[in-house]
């Protein structure tokens, strides 16, 4: 070690020292390369085709007439559904939903056909699983659009029989109609919606923890003095030299992930690859800085690892991908700005949805730049903490 520091610049000796450390333990290969690549694979494959299609549902046909069978056939043509079960009573359908054999069911009541023919009030009731909210929403949507048309069936039949044109009667029934355009993700595909943000949510957990570990392990294994010595007691050199190899590996993986997600999987994006990759690199550096910042607060590795693992998991919620953050309590909403992943998701959405331009993301970009700057302020404290040796035995 001493030889290196004598003959070369402090930065180079820290860097070289770190490369030796990295390659000496298989752990680093695991957490820097294998786990991130596994995460790419997981997020890319977990949603299957991404479309919620062929969801198993059931039909309870209590009527058993031509009309009810006709409705059953119509239901079976909806791509969202796959009618896997037919029941003769509501109880067994409900039981099957409870067992998760089906995710919803339609009930055609007794005397349905005769009621419709006679112009009596009749009801088609459907039930959908809402303990599993996302599937439930899909089934709700599919049933609504299908049954609203079916519901007007008797009137249309009546009118057409009287010689009124079908179009005319539809206008009578639905004078005002709606067209919906989900922006960006027009097919409401789950992989378009979740793969990209959730990969980075998981990635930030790994980056945060690994950063804390590589810095903290110096204190833990009592090698921090040698580390600072190699850096000629310059904390900035020590940190940058140490983390740079990881930054490079993460950037390669981040860019690779972008390529797989947007290039291979064909998830739509409005910008070019360059802005996406630049945002990814900025996000990685900000996240590493955030990790160093958290560690510097109380540099006892055992404790701070536990804390960071919880903080990082919060990133999944606060990135705003699942439940929109602005609708959480104000305290939670403002806390979300403290997480690099939140800003990254906002920048990425801007780039993906329409590439609206820097004017709409400069705040997020600036905050990502702030993370390294604020962390710089913590470095003197970290240096003192290391030299004092008082955090070594806390676990």
């Amino acid at each position, binding site marked *: 070690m001493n030889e290196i520091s004598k003959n070369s610049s402090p930065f180079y000796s820290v860097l070289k020292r770190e490369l030796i450390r990295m390659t000496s333990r298989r752990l680093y290969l695991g957490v820097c390369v294998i786990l991130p690549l596994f995460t790419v694979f997981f997020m890319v494959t977990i949603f299957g085709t991404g479309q919620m299609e062929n969801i198993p549902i059931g039909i309870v046909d209590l009527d058993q007439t031509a009309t009810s069978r006709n409705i059953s056939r119509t239901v079976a043509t909806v791509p969202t559904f796959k009618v896997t079960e037919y029941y003769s009573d509501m109880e067994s359908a409900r*039981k099957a939903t409870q067992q998760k054999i089906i995710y919803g069911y339609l009930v055609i009541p007794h005397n349905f056909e005769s009621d419709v023919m006679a112009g009596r009030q009749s009801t088609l*009731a459907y039930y*959908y699983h809402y303990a599993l909210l996302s599937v439930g*929403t899909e089934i709700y949507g599919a049933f609504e659009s299908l049954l609203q048309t079916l519901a007007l069936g008797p009137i249309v039949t009546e009118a057409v029989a009287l010689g009124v044109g079908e179009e005319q009667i539809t*206008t009578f029934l639905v004078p005002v*109609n709606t067209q919906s355009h989900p922006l960006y993700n027009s097919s409401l595909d789950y992989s378009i919606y979740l793969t990209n943000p959730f990969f980075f949510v998981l990635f930030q957990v790994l980056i945060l923890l690994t950063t804390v570990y590589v810095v903290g392990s110096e204190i833990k294994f009592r090698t921090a003095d040698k580390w600072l010595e190699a850096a000629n007691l310059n904390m900035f050199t020590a940190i940058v030299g140490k983390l740079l190899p990881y930054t490079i590996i993460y950037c390669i993986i981040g860019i690779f992930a972008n390529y797989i997600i947007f290039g291979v999987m064909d998830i739509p994006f409005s910008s070019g690859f360059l802005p996406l990759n630049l945002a990814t690199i900025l996000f990685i550096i900000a996240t590493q800085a955030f990790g160093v910042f958290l560690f510097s607060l109380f540099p006892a590795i055992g404790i701070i690892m536990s804390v960071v693992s919880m903080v990082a998991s919060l990133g999944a919620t606060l990135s705003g991908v699942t439940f929109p953050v602005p609708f*959480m309590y104000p305290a939670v909403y403002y806390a979300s700005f403290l997480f690099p992943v939140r800003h990254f998701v906002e920048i990425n959405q801007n780039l993906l949805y329409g590439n609206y331009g820097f004017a709409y993301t400069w705040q997020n970009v600036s905050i990502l730049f702030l993370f390294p700057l604020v962390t710089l302020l913590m470095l003197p404290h970290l240096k003192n903490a290391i030299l004092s040796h008082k955090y070594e035995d806390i676990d």
Partner: protein
Amino acid sequence: MKILIKMKSSLKDIVELIIQEFKTIASSYSILLVLIGGIFIYGLLYNYMYQPNVIRNAPVVVVDKSNSKLSREYTRLIDAAPQVEVYGTAVDFIAAKELMKKNKVAGIIYIPKDFDTRVNRGEESIFITYAVTQAFLYYSSIQEASAGAMLELDDRYRPNMVVFLPAKDVLQIAAATPISVSGTPLYNYTEGYGTYLIPAVIMIIIFQTLMMVISMISGKERESGSIRHFAEQGTTLKRVSRIIISKTFVYCILYSIFGLFLAGLIPIIFQLPNIGNSYEIIMLFIPYLLATCFFGLAGSVFFTDSEAPILMIAFFSVGLVFLSGISYPLELMPWYWQATHFIIPAAPGTLAFVKVNSMGASMADIQTEYITLWIQCAVYFILACLAYQYNIKKAIK
């Protein structure tokens, strides 16, 4: 007599091992932090974050090109819907889009110029909804609100449309009754996001923190070499199995308390769905905790120091929610992820808990998950014994 003495000595051994394990946990700040922070703080914090539960008043902007009585009526109906709130009536589409880019609104409702005149001519009139899909909940809220307002408006205007029908047929057509449609969401009485997600998260928290505690303890044993003490009485599988049983006993005692807090108290405090039978929840927790302990102890072959395991464990939580089949149907995943569902205790455990707790399922309804958990217990118990035997032998070499 001989058997009795033998039993006595192995019981004594187990008791000593248990005391030792308790001491290890009580003397480590980081383990206590995972337990207290992970269980209590995280359990409460998560609930606090998801308390708003549903989206109310998502901002939308209306581009009213028609500027008629009908379009204003429609705007009022949209505004009255609980899911959305009209942020403003921007004059043109460009201004509306600008608001969307600035994240001020989550959707645009465009009412074309001929909205009113078409209805008056007896033609179908169309308005267009554009909604962001940043979060699916935005899209579904706006969708629900605009469809609701449409139905309401249609009901109001249908009588006016009668004039466009042939006079002789009106009575007969009007006499035909439409079929009414009623949809009922099952098992989530608030229809909220928190009430859907948190029961699953509770089980994941239990799994994750327990895994972290086990890995930190077993990693530390290997790092400090204290694992060698286990070798004093031999490394036969019988003796190793006593170590595994003692450790599992300690973790299960602790987690019966934490489990009571997370699965018993939290749902009451935060009014989450908890229609499950307590007896069945307890019966589920027994194999769940055992399988998780054995799974963690079997994983100890990979844990070489007390912090490194956290690197490998922490990031799985989100993946485990997916693998449980709560957020995305298992049926639609590729076969290898469906298979993984049966390998990691958290996945069937979470699914079974949601079934019992939120859906009121009985023991028979969770049969698949329940049997899976017990099989996991058996397999991972053997693997845990082998793993510990291997670790001890490696350490004394």
